């Protein structure tokens, strides 16, 4: 394995200093379920790892009237056991639950899933549909980036060397708002999304959709926010015609590739079906609120 130095900062300031210094490639180590595999790959350049798990704010989560503040490195096993978070963002918690096995859940994190920036990452569409904001700290201070702008390409994110994802913030949803995330995999467990869709829906007291966000995954280089699919839902009672229009908008917005996990044609179709079903689940949940 290519790890040549292991560092353990006790504070964010120390972490930023460690990430900014040195000539060697330096990577943040959280759960390591992606990083350690990458470090084991052949021909990997020597790597300094900065284990940020001793920084308390990286590992905790709080939810109150203003929304969710999530430590990016909290293990998914802990995140998905949080009933207070599940009550507000059931779709996001479901997306986190879909990552890997029980063993992987013990280490993997929502922030790691985001930073690793796989096109098929499950939590990214769920974060984007909920309007998540990424708080990044670096040598020049803090900046906040919307989740849909955080990932810039396959395995690429907007952070510069020296920067660290400090927290993920999701504003408290409006009344009668809920979310859902669905993915297609050919197996029942332990697989990577062939296509995915995250949907957040806000209803008024009459059951009319007043706001929606639709984000599709694994059908382009990055997860895609699809305003046209949201527009198809807004103003409707999430009836079949609106759902069909949203599905068609999601399929039209997708730019899938053909690979061993699915053909482009199949993905384009399935992402529409998932959008429709996720929108229905999110709307049913919003009604219950």
């Amino acid at each position: 394995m290519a790890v040549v130095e292991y560092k353990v900062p006790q504070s964010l300031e120390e972490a930023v200093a460690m990430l900014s210094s040195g000539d060697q490639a330096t990577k943040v180590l959280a759960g390591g379920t992606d990083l350690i595999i990458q470090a084991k790959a052949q021909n990997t350049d020597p790597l300094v790892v900065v284990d940020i798990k001793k920084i308390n704010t990286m590992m905790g989560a709080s939810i109150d009237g203003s929304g969710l503040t999530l430590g990016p490195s909290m293990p998914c096993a802990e995140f998905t056991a949080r009933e207070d978070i599940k009550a507000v963002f059931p779709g996001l918690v479901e997306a986190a639950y879909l990552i890997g096995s029980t063993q992987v859940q013990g280490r993997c994190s929502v922030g790691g899933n985001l930073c690793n920036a796989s096109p098929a990452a499950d939590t990214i569409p769920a974060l984007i549909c909920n309007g998540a904001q990424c708080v990044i700290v670096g040598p020049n201070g803090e900046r906040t980036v919307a989740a849909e702008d955080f990932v810039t390409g396959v395995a690429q994110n907007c952070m510069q060397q020296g920067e660290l994802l400090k927290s993920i913030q999701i504003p408290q949803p409006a009344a009668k708002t809920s979310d859902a995330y669905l993915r297609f995999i050919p197996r029942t467990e332990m697989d990577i999304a062939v296509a995915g869709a995250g949907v957040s829906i806000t209803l008024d007291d009459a059951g009319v959709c007043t706001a929606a966000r639709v984000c599709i995954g694994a059908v382009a280089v990055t997860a895609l926010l699809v305003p046209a699919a949201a527009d198809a839902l807004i103003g409707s009672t999430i009836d079949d015609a609106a759902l069909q229009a949203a599905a068609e908008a999601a399929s039209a917005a997708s730019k899938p590739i053909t690979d061993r996990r699915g053909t482009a044609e199949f993905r384009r179709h399935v992402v529409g079906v998932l959008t429709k079903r996720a929108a229905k689940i999110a709307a049913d949940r919003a009604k219950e609120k």
Partner: protein
Amino acid sequence: MAKIHVNTTINGEPTEFLCDPNDTLLNVLRYNLELTGTKEGCGSGDCGACSVTVNDRLVCACLVLGAEAEGAEVGTIEGVAEANQLSVIQTKFLEHAALQCGICTPGLIVSTQELLKENPKPTEEEARYFLAGNLCRCTGYDKVIKAVMDSAETLRGEA
């Protein structure tokens, strides 16, 4: 490469070791500490043969750095039996012949112990989902699941 001095607890015993930054916890257990009960299958977190607990959380030891064990409580298959007495889960795996080659067995037993700690009365489906990260290429899982369900019943005092 400077060695890292790690103080940890393994199966309740305070333990210290020296490792390189690129040593996995799996390699430290097997080669530095000669705790060879934990097996290496894939080395990439897919098969679960190296399942151990770190601070009461089930993980793959191949995806943990040895250095990360500093200050942690590590639990391995060697800590499952009490002295020379096999645990209920170990006994049930033998009774049901829930193993053939045995490479997956330590990981499956550690994982089953965690499953039953978390959920003493799992349905078969819940058990299968929880153990989906423990691959076995011999048994076809049928006998494994029988051993797991029987262990659960016995531990609940129902069998």
